[in-house]
């Protein structure tokens, strides 16, 4: 029956690169040799539509088919039976052929919570655009519209295979949704909002400089706009009675299809939660992560200690091949009176309860636990289903504890231990965010107490001749859930986790000779030297004045310390300016002599041998080494032989004495990056191949300016950036045994 019905037909398929679409395409190509297919595919990342289709035919879904007909057979199919139309359902559509017999509309947004405009654009504008293009083509095809069972919205009880009862004006909703972005954009640009973004950005990145703050606040604004639009979508959907924007727009899409079909026959097919294939193209075929997979995997990894949901609720799962078969049967059976509705779902005749799914999955993982890298196997958690509110409370407590831990670690002095604490906090944060996201997203699905009847689907199935029932059947009653979940689905989704990849090695610095002039830029204090301008100053004073006066000098610096630290937190440049006033009146020659005789020794005690080794390694590789520091010039002097270029703070001099004022603005934060760019341009150096070493978040612009940034003894903020961008992180320390407090030797 199906075979005859589809023979010699020409079918348009949208969403063919998606999960359902490609399964359908595979069937059409493999089982209906006389059916021709038109694919509406958009080009992506510079890849034209045709190339995408070629690539699509190489995916695992087509493996059994390829084995049967050979690669040449596939190529022939592409040549003879597939026409690729380049176009995007949400945008301008190309003219459609005028001889279409069938239209399978499978394109949809895969996300449950897209920003409102995006959701409407795909699920509604895309749908209306398609059906209008069909009408304009002059063809008179049979429309098969894929929807979802959950278009029924937040409801309880039994949902029949019938038109939705809502009277929402989908055109008005669409217009409002598309307009939302402009409104939100506008709102995000109100001065109060912008000030808020800047304030937050400054709090986090203030020390890195104004450009960094500006970039971050713009990022924050964009994030806010997106989050806001997601909120718009979720709220609108929920006020109208749907759990999320996805189901809401799909529901409106059905109405649009009903209206726009004109007098064309239309079938609306509503699958429930589509999961991996039970039989075809092969058991366990799945592509990408669908709905349950992230949860199943996270559960298997022991990462979800508890999850909301009603244990008695029905989790309406359906294998993808059942949906494809239903679509084919529907395609072979045009409705008699214009529009027909089908549920492809398991809840009515072969329900599997949430608790049962949990048990089967847990059982599966207990028998066959996931390996944990270097730690044997993951422990599978035991859920108690304490109910939504308790899970919510647990989550909130966890989030609060994490916020607190985060505040603590970001204020601790930097060390290896703190950095390992940061890693733990970030890992926990990732876990909690994951649970939070999925708990919110799936609440409606795991708490559903609704049954979608599938009488019409069943009738359709029964109408198939025996042979076709064997090949194309979709009677959900024949699914053995234990077999499906434990032998087919879970093995398929966990296969990639069975062979954990070896730990990705930490990024490493590679010092290589290069063609073009290469720079190796080093920050001084905190990076190559565990000392700071205050210590250098004290040391200098100690070397100069009798020991009895030392306490006075320490006290005087200590008195200034709170205000200095405040300045340092706001802006390093401000701090340096304030502190360097102390050099007012000091003799240039005297300081140079003291540094040579005494301070040099202290600085050399505090230099990290690994830093010196690295500097020399760069020199051996022919790189130009540059010292970039906010410290005063004389203090950089002991290291001059290591560097080709030393850029340090210069104080103004009058009559051989320092004035305490800087000659040029201190080289901190973005000024360093700017200096480096200018220098590289002047010298013809290649910044892409160059290296920069720094320890502080304030040096972010400097690090970003080169192709090989290295975080040395990073503070927490820089450490996070380095980890995210996979920059090498190194710990350079002076040798143990170096006294913590040192005093100059006197003769």
């Amino acid at each position, binding site marked *: 029956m199906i075979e005859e019905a589809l023979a010699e037909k020409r079918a348009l398929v949208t969403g063919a690169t998606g999960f359902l679409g490609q399964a359908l395409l595979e069937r059409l190509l493999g089982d209906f040799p006389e059916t021709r297919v038109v694919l509406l595919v958009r080009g992506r990342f510079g890849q034209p539509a045709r190339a995408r289709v070629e690539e699509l035919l190489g995916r695992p879904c087509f493996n059994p088919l390829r084995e049967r007909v050979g690669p040449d057979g596939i190529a022939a199919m592409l040549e003879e039976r597939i026409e690729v139309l380049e176009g995007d359902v949400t945008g301008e559509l190309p003219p459609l052929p005028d001889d279409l017999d069938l239209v399978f509309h499978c394109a949809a947004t895969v996300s449950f919570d897209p920003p409102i405009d995006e959701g409407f654009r795909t699920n509604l504008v895309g749908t209306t655009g398609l059906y209008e293009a069909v009408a304009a083509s002059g063809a008179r095809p049979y429309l098969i519209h894929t929807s979802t069972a959950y278009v029924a919205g937040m409801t309880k009880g039994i949902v029949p295979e019938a038109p939705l009862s809502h009277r929402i004006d989908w055109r008005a909703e669409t217009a409002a949704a598309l307009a939302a972005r402009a409104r939100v954009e506008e709102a995000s640009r109100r001065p109060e909002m912008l000030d808020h973004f800047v304030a937050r950005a400054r709090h986090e990145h203030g020390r890195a400089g104004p450009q960094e703050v500006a970039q971050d606040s713009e990022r924050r604004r964009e994030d806010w706009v997106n989050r806001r639009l997601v909120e718009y979508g979720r709220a609108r959907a929920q006020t109208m009675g749907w759990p999320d924007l996805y189901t809401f727009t799909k529901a409106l899409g059905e109405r649009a299809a009903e209206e726009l079909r004109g007098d064309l026959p239309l079938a609306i097919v509503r699958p429930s939660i589509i999961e991996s294939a039970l039989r075809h193209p092969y058991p366990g075929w799945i592509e990408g992560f669908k709905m349950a997979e992230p949860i199943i995997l996270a559960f298997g990894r022991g990462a979800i200690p508890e999850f909301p949901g009603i244990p008695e609720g029905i989790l309406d799962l359906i294998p993808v091949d059942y949906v494809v078969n239903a679509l084919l049967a529907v395609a072979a059976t045009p409705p008699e009176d214009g529009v027909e509705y089908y549920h492809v779902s398991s809840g009515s005749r072969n329900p599997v309860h949430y608790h049962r799914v949990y048990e089967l999955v847990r059982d599966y993982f207990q028998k066959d636990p996931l390996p944990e890298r270097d730690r044997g196997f993951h422990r599978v958690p035991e859920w108690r289903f304490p109910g939504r509110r308790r899970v919510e409370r647990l989550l909130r407590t966890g989030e609060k504890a994490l916020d607190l831990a985060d505040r603590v670690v970001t204020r601790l002095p930097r060390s290896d231990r703190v950095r390992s604490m940061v890693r733990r906090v970030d890992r926990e944060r990732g876990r909690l965010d994951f649970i939070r996201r999925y708990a919110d997203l799936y609440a409606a699905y795991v708490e559903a107490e609704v049954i979608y009847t599938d009488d019409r689907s069943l009738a359709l199935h029964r109408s198939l001749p025996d042979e076709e029932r064997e090949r194309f059947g979709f009677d959900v009653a024949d699914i053995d859930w234990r077999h499906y979940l434990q032998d087919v689905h879970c093995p398929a989704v966990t296969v990639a986790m069975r062979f954990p990849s070896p730990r990705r090695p930490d990024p490493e610095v590679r010092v290589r000779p290069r063609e073009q002039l290469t720079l190796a830029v080093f920050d001084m204090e905190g990076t190559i030297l565990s000392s700071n301008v205050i210590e250098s100053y004290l040391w200098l004073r100690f070397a100069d004045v009798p020991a009895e006066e030392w306490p006075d000098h320490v006290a005087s610096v200590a008195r200034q310390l709170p205000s200095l630290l405040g300045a340092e937190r706001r802006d390093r440049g401000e701090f340096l300016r304030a502190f360097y006033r102390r050099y007012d009146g000091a003799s240039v020659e005297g300081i140079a002599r003291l540094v040579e005789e005494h301070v040099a020794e202290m600085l*050399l005690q505090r230099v990290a041998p690994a830093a010196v080794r690295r500097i020399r390694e760069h020199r051996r590789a022919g790189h130009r080494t540059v010292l970039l520091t906010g410290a005063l010039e004389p203090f950089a002097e002991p290291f001059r032989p290591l560097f080709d270029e030393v850029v340090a703070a210069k104080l103004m001099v009058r009559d051989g004495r320092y004035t305490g004022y800087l000659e040029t603005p201190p080289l901190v934060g973005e000024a360093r990056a700017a200096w480096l760019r200018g220098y590289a341009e002047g010298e013809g150096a290649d910044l892409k191949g160059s290296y920069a070493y720094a320890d502080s978040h304030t040096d972010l612009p400097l690090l970003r300016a080169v192709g090989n940034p290295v975080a040395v003894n990073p503070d927490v903020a820089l450490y996070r950036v380095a980890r995210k961008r996979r920059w090498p992180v190194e710990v350079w320390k002076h*040798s*143990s045994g170096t006294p913590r407090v040192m005093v100059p030797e006197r003769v």
Partner: protein
Amino acid sequence: MTRPGFVLEVDERTPPLLVHEGEGFRLQRFPMGTRVVYPPDSLPGVRDVDAAIERALLEPHGSEPLPDLLRPGMRLTIAFDDISLPLPPMRSPDVRGRVMEHVLEHAARKGVDDVRLIVANSLHRRMTPSEIKKVVGERIYRSFHPDALTNHDAEDRANLTHIGRTPEGEDVEINRRAAESDLLVYVNINLVAMDGGHKSVPVGLGSYASLRHHHNVHTMLNSTSYMDPGHSALHHSCERMGRLLAEHLSVFTVETTLNNDTFPSPFDFMNKREWEWSARDQATYLAAKKANDAAPGRMRREVFRRIESPYRVTGINAGETEAVHKETLSAVHRQQLVEVDGQADVMVVGLPYISPYNVNSIMNPILAQCLGLGYFFNMYVGRPLVRQGGAMILFHPVPWEFHQVHHPSYVDFFEEVLAETTDPAEIEAKFEEQYATDPWYVHLYRTSYAYHGVHPFYMWYWGAHAMSHLGDVIFVGGDRKAVHRMGFRSASTFADALEMAGETVGTSPRITYLHAPPLALAEVR
């Protein structure tokens, strides 16, 4: 007459014995039958040091009296041993300073104006002003420092003179001022038999180009031992150089020897044999041990750093280098030589807190190695205390610590070179040149207080003879990572160390414990 050296055989009446272990010490019980080598008791010192100095200068060996060598308008240079001698540093006044006072007085009397004093620090770090002052004394320091009293700079090309080559083709290059002087007076303290003689000038005032002819693996493997100049390739080379120098330059050598009064009160119990400790010594030991163990590391280091030895001078000899050195050596032997019958399977030493290269500094792992496998292993004439293939057990914590100002190239040697190989010959071939000529190390050696870049290599070569001779090296209480880096093993207790050594030497080895310091030189028959 003081008591001669003595080899004790541990029996049931033997109390636990003192063992040094870095900035600490312990009483360790040794297995029955262990032989313990004690040096002779401290020799009596010269009663009137000034008179002895004067006598030495006026009645020199193989030379005219000093005053006869001095004349107005001449260039006189006085060179003297650096901070590496003696160990621990000598309580003021340092005998070198006193000798120099006398030399300078003679020079003044003879109207010699052009006088320069040079620290013969070779490739060692420069001495700091206060260290120099301590050696030469307040008066000389104030008169000559900084212009006429300087450290030798072995990398100052302009101030080095290539004297020539020995018959063996060894370059002799020394300090230009010394080379161009009409008279070079060298003042030393001859703490051990390795020091002095022709080793003083060619090495102390030499350069890397000159030193590399004898400071190398081949020479060290043929110096058995370098505490026995007659059997030391190192000394043979130095002698050739010294003789060549003597042809070009008139050298007046003044060598001094000290007795074994190593530890001042309250640590003077360390100078005594344990069974002769008085009740007060025992109480002092207990108190010192408890206080030391409880003190934080930095404080402990400071306490030990301040130790100055109350040495007495046992001899002052002046004149022609070789004639003087013969006298000096016999004085050293009188104080340190102990006859030992036969070799042991296991040699035990306790490494003290100080070695020649960490005065006012930190004993890093390489220096601990050098002190044990270099100095203590070589404290023999005749045959090593331990048989070929035997084991050496050393007490030292070997902390992974370095003094960055004094030993910058050591840090890198430890991190880069030893991480790759511990074989002295391979290290020499592959890395020495690079470290010796590295501009940063040269810069630090010249302007800061750093040992020369090549110095850690010499420390490693110093142990080469022991490394090739021994079957096993075990540090008791050593930092595992640091000890392994050097290719040795670490044990937490002496018993464990013996157990481990058993793999090499069997279960009932003959054990010899070299009880030092105070220093003893074993004459093994």
